[in-house]
C-alpha cells in the first residue's frame, strides 16, 4: 500500500533541483476549454513543499494503517479512501486553475467525510463526518464564489497569471467580497475559530486518518490557499487584519481549550487548531520573517503532530485506553513508541535541538518585529508556546513515565509497522533540527519565494546568539514545564472558558442544524402535501406570477387587435360557447355537464370552419361526438356530482382560475402582436402540389412533410387504446385470502 505514495515521493524528488532553483514547472491539459477550465499542473517551491509532505507522510501513514487496522475487515476500503484523499490533496497543491483547485478541494472534503465516518456503525462518527462535510463544504461553496469573482476581476482563472495582475485585483471594488468569500473557504477548511469545532469532532476517524488529514495535510489546505493567494490578495490592511485577528484568536483559543483536555486525540486536535491559527496569523502578518516562520512551523508541525497522533493511536491500540489519565509508566512496555513520543513532544514544546525549536524561535522573532503589534503578538505566541510544551508533555511524556495503573494489565510493544512511522517522523524532526541546511535551500526558501514573490536570505540554525527571542524561549520552556506539573489546577481554572467557547461554536452549529431540519420538514409538508390539487395550485400560481412579471417587465405595451371585425354569426357563436362554458362549470348533473362540453366542442369546430380550417372542423366534429358518447357510456357507471369542496376553497380556486384565464387571454393578444415570419408555412404551401402531389396543404403536412410525427401520433393512440382495453376488460385475480 505504501508503494504508491513512496513512488510519488521519488517522482517528486526528481523535480527537486528545478524547484529549488526557483523554476516553475508547468503542464496543461484542456478540460472544459469553453469555460477556461484546464487541468494545469504547476510545480513551484510551495507546491513542492506541500506535495512532499503529503506524499511522504502519506507513505508512512499507509504503512501504519496496515498495522493499525490489520484485523479490520475493511482495511482495503480504508486504504482506498486514504489514497483517494492523497490524490485529491496533491491535486489541490499542484493545480494552477482556480476551478480545478476548487474541485480537488471539494474532493478532499468528500474523502474526509468517508474517513471520519469510517466507523459508520457509530452514530458519533456519522454525525462528526456530516458536520465536517457541512462546515467545509459550505466554506468551499463560498470559496467557489470568491474564486469566480477573482477570476472575473483578474481576467483569468490561472493562478500563475493572476499573480501578475495582483495590483489590479487589490484595487478592484470587488476585492473585499472576493477576499471575504475565499477566506470563508480557507478558514472553514483550516478550522479557524469560530469554525474550529468540526476538527476535534472529526477525531472520530480512525487514528491514521486523523494523523494524516486532520493534523498533517487536509487542514493545511486552507493554509496552502492563503499562502498561494498571498501574492494576489495579500499585503492589504484587510488581509493583515482578518488573517492575524482570526489566526491569532484561533491560536490562543485552541491552546487554551486544548490544555485542559484529557483524551489523547482531543488534546492533539485542539493543539492542531491552535497550530493552524498560528500559520494563518503568520501568513497574515506577511513580513519576510513571518513567512519564514510559517514555513518552518508548517514542516515542524506536520512532523511532530503526525508522530504524536500515531503514538496516541499506538497507546489506544495496545492498551485500549484513550485518556491520558488512565495510562502511565508505559515506557518499559512500549520503548520504541516512547522514544518517538518523547522526541515529538519535545519538538512540539520547542526544545532544542529539535526542529520545533527552530520554528518557535522564528515565530517569536517575527512576533518581536511587529512594530505596534509586537506586544500583543508576543504575549499571544509565548502563551501558546508555553501551552504547547505543556500539551506535548501531557501526550508524549506523561503516559510513559510514572507509576503504571494496575488495571492496564500486560502491554506489548506494537508491531514494527506501527512504531516505525512515528519514529521516522520524530527522527526527522531531530535530523532537521540538527542539520537544518538539509531543507533550507532545497525546500523552504523556494516555498517562501512562491509566497512573497522574491527570494530573501535565510539563516536557519539552533544558535543565533543571545537575543530577546532566546530569553522568551527559555521563559516559555520553564513555564511549560510548570504548566505540566500543575496541570490539575489549570484544568480546573480553564473549565468555564471551555464552556464559553463551546456555547459560541458547537452549540450554535447544533441549533442551526435543528432549525434547518425543522425548516426543511415544514417546507416539505407545505409543498409535498400529497394532494393533487395543491400541486396544481402551486404550479399554476407560479406560472401566473412569473409570466405576469415577465409580461409586465419585458413586453411593454401592445395594441388590442381590432383588425378583423367580427360578423354577426361569429358573435353568436362566441356567445354560445361562453354560455356553455359557464354553464358547464355550474352544472349539477353529469349529463348536463357533458352536454355543455359537447356544445363547446361543436362551437370550437364551427370556429375552425369559419376561419379556413375545414379539416380541423371535420375532425373536431367527429372526435367531439365520440367523446360525448364515451363520456355518457362511462359516466353511467360513475357516481353523480356531489359538492366536495368547501365554499372557501371554491372561491379561492375560482379566483386563481379566472386570473389564469385572464393571463391566457392577455398572452394570446400579446402573441398576435408579434409578427411571425411565415416562411415555413409559405414554403410548405408552395411545395405541396409540385413535390408532394397533394392539393390539401394541411393533409400534405401531416402525412408527408411531418409524416414521422403522425406516425408517432398513431403509436400514442394505439397505446392509449391498448391501455383502455386493458383497464376495461382485464380484471385482476381476486385475492382469496385476506
Amino acid at each position, binding site marked *: 500500500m505504501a508503494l504508491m505514495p513512496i513512488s510519488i515521493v521519488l517522482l517528486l524528488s526528481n523535480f527537486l533541483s528545478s524547484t529549488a532553483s526557483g523554476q516553475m514547472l508547468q503542464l496543461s491539459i484542456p478540460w472544459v476549454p469553453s469555460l477556461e477550465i484546464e487541468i494545469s499542473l504547476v510545480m513551484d517551491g510551495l507546491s513542492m513543499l506541500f506535495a512532499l509532505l503529503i506524499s511522504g507522510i502519506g507513505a508512512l501513514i499507509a504503512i501504519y494503517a496496515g498495522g493499525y487496522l490489520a484485523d479490520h475487515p475493511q482495511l482495503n476500503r480504508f486504504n482506498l479512501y486514504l489514497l483517494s484523499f492523497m490524490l485529491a490533496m496533491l491535486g489541490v497543491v499542484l493545480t494552477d486553475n482556480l476551478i480545478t483547485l476548487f474541485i480537488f478541494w471539494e474532493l478532499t472534503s468528500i474523502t474526509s467525510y468517508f474517513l471520519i465516518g469510517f466507523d459508520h456503525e457509530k452514530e458519533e462518527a456519522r454525525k462528526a463526518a456530516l458536520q465536517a462535510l457541512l462546515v467545509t463544504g459550505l466554506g468551499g461553496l463560498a470559496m467557489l464564489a470568491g474564486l469566480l469573482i477573482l477570476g472575473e476581476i483578474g481576467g483569468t482563472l490561472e493562478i500563475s497569471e493572476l499573480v501578475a495582475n495582483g495590483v489590479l485585483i487589490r484595487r478592484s471594488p470587488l476585492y473585499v467580497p472576493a477576499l471575504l468569500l475565499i477566506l470563508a473557504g480557507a478558514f472553514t477548511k483550516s478550522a479557524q475559530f469560530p469554525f474550529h469545532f468540526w476538527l476535534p469532532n472529526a477525531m472520530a476517524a480512525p487514528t491514521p486518518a486523523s494523523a494524516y488529514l486532520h493534523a498533517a495535510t487536509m487542514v493545511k489546505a486552507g493554509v496552502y490557499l492563503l499562502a498561494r493567494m498571498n501574492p494576489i490578495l495579500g499585503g492589504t490592511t484587510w488581509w493583515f487584519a482578518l488573517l492575524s485577528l482570526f489566526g491569532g484568536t484561533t491560536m490562543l483559543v485552541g491552546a487554551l481549550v486544548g490544555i485542559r483536555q484529557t483524551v489523547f486525540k482531543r488534546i492533539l486536535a485542539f493543539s492542531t487548531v491552535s497550530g493552524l491559527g498560528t500559520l494563518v496569523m503568520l501568513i497574515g502578518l506577511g513580513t519576510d520573517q513571518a513567512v519564514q516562520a510559517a514555513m518552518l512551523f508548517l514542516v515542524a508541525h506536520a512532523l511532530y503532530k503526525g508522530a504524536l497522533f500515531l503514538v496516541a493511536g499506538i497507546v489506544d491500540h495496545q492498551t485500549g485506553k484513550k485518556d491520558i489519565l488512565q495510562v502511565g509508566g508505559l515506557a518499559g512496555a512500549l520503548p520504541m513508541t516512547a522514544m518517538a513520543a518523547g522526541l515529538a513532544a519535545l519538538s512540539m514544546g520547542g526544545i532544542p535541538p529539535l526542529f520545533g525549536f527552530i520554528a518557535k524561535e522564528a515565530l517569536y522573532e517575527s512576533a518581536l518585529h511587529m512594530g505596534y503589534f509586537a506586544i500583543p503578538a508576543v504575549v499571544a505566541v509565548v502563551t501558546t508556546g508555553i501551552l504547547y510544551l505543556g500539551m506535548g508533555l501531557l501526550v508524549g511524556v506523561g503516559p510513559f513515565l510514572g507509576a503504571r495503573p494496575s488495571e492496564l494489565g500486560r502491554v506489548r510493544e506494537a508491531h514494527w509497522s506501527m512504531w516505525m512511522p512515528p519514529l521516522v517522523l520524530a527522527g526527522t524532526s531531530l535530523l532537521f533540527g540538527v542539520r537544518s541546511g538539509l531543507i533550507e535551500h532545497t525546500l523552504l526558501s523556494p516555498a517562501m519565494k512562491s509566497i512573497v514573490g522574491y527570494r530573501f536570505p535565510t539563516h536557519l540554525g539552533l544558535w543565533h546568539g543571545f537575543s530577546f527571542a532566546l530569553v522568551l524561549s527559555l521563559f516559555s520552556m520553564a513555564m511549560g514545564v510548570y504548566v505540566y506539573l500543575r496541570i490539575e489546577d489549570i484544568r480546573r481554572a480553564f473549565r468555564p472558558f471551555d464552556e464559553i467557547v463551546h456555547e459560541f461554536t458547537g452549540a450554535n452549529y447544533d441549533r442551526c442544524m435543528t432549525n434547518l431540519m425543522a425548516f426543511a420538514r415544514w417546507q416539505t409538508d407545505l409543498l409535498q402535501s400529497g394532494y393533487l390539487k395543491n400541486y396544481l395550485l402551486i404550479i399554476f400560481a407560479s406560472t401566473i406570477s412569473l409570466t405576469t412579471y415577465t409580461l409586465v417587465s419585458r413586453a411593454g405595451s401592445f395594441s388590442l387587435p381590432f383588425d378583423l371585425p367580427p360578423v354577426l354569426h361569429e358573435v353568436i357563436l362566441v356567445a354560445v360557447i361562453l354560455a356553455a362554458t359557464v354553464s358547464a362549470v355550474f352544472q349539477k348533473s*353529469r349529463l348536463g355537464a357533458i352536454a355543455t362540453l359537447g356544445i363547446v366542442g361543436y362551437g370550437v369546430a364551427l370556429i375552425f370552419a369559419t376561419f379556413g380550417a375545414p379539416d380541423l372542423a371535420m375532425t373536431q366534429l367527429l372526435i367531439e361526438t365520440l367523446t360525448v358518447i364515451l363520456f355518457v357510456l362511462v359516466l353511467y*357507471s360513475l357516481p353523480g356530482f356531489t359538492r*366536495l*369542496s368547501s365554499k372557501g376553497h371554491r372561491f379561492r380556486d375560482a379566483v386563481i*382560475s379566472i386570473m389564469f384565464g385572464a393571463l391566457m387571454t392577455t398572452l*394570446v393578444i400579446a402573441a*398576435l402582436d408579434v409578427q411571425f415570419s411565415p416562411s415555413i408555412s409559405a414554403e410548405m404551401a408552395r411545395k405541396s402540389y409540385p413535390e408532394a402531389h397533394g392539393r390539401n396543404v394541411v393533409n400534405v*403536412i401531416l402525412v408527408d412533410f411531418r409524416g414521422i410525427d403522425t406516425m408517432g401520433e398513431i403509436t400514442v393512440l394505439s397505446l392509449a*387504446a391498448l391501455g383502455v382495453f386493458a383497464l376495461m376488460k382485464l380484471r385482476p385475480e381476486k385475492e382469496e385470502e385476506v
Partner: protein
Amino acid sequence: MNLLLAIVIGALYSAGFYLILRRSIVKLIIGLSFLSHASNLLVFAAGGLTRGRAPLVPPGSLAPVPPYADPLPQALVLTAIVISFGVTAFALALVNRTYQTTGQEDIDELRRTEC
C-alpha cells in the same frame, strides 16, 4: 374577432382549470377536455386568423392562392385534437376503473387509499 377569440380561450382555460381543481374525479376529466379545447384554439389563434380561405391548391394552379389560412398551425392542432381524444379516453377508462376498485370519487381521499 381576434379579441373575442382571446376571450373565449381565456374562459375555456378558466373553466378547465377550475374543474380540474375539484375533488370529484369526473369533473377532473371534463376539466381536461376544456383545457385541450383551449390549447387547440390557442395554437390556432396564434397563427393568425384568415376568414374563409382554406389552404387548398385549386385545380390548375401549383400553389394555394393568397390570402389563405396558415396550414401549419392547422396541422399541429389536428394532431393535438386526436391526441387529446386519446388522453380523454384513457383517463376515462382509468377513472372508471379506479372508481370500481376503490369506490372512491374524492381525489383527496384517494391519497389515503391503498390497493
